[in-house]
């Protein structure tokens, strides 16, 4: 997992734990949290194969653009590996 990552900009239906406001946004991996059952399967009675979970830190400037309240403040969220791709920038 590269340190700079981008949240995939997908909008699948289901029990998704990736907030919509972070999709398509790039951030930095703050720490790896270990592997947890995938809620997108567990919520529907599936076994929920373990997926790696990361805490990703985003700047408010990245998330909210020019309208950010204070651009250098941050928001951290837990994002599963299958929702992350290397950030190209």
């Amino acid at each position, binding site marked *: 997992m590269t340190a700079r990552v981008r949240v995939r900009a997908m909008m699948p239906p289901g029990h998704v*734990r*990736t*907030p919509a*406001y972070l999709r398509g946004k790039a951030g930095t991996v703050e720490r790896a*949290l270990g592997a*947890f059952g995938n*809620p997108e399967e567990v919520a529907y009675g599936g076994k929920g194969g373990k997926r790696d*979970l990361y*805490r990703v*830190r985003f700047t408010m400037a990245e*998330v*909210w653009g020019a309208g950010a*309240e*204070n651009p*250098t*403040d*941050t*928001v*951290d*969220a*837990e*994002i*599963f590996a299958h929702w992350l791709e290397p950030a190209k920038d």
Partner: protein
Amino acid sequence: MPHDHPGHSHQGLSPSGHPYRPDDDHPLTYWQTMEIAIRELLVEKGETTAEEIARQIDAMDARSPANGARVVARAWTDPDYRARLLENANAAAHEIGIDIGPLNLIALENTADVHNVVVCTLCSCYPRDLLGLPPDWYKSRAYRSRVVREPRAVLHELGVDTPADLRLRVHDSTAHLRYVVIPRRPPGTDHLSEDRLAQIVTRDSMIGTGLPRAPE
């Protein structure tokens, strides 16, 4: 249902000025029916008992922010404990006799340069096993949507001012982790015992939306 007694009515406002809560005279919802069906099946099949369920509800109701306050007070008075708490919050809570069950906990330290605040934008994730049940506003759409968009404005409304040179970190509990904020120890508390310190640690200071009480 509205009815009359001599002297007072249950319509309108109570003697203390609050509206009466209406009786829940409506059919069960789909999920209420589902909960009852699963609970009765589990009891019938001997997987659990009604008493065990009642005990578990009692245990959850008994959890309160006092547990988190003990953790914070210990961290304020013991630098080695503070380091262990930041490294592994589960083990640190267990070390002082607080059982937080299967909760995966991370402690976030407020400093002169950083202020942390916790939210669950997707629902109402909260370290219940450490702090008890969350306040109603924590689950409100207004708090959940605004605190990631304009956290400083929200904190200002809640009485917490954040100078421009203080870095604000919002933590969205989106999946499996739960968070507790270690607030800054207020000045003028050097003489207080660990027990007294725990009493000035408020629930909101451990969410990041408040500060510890000023010592008396």
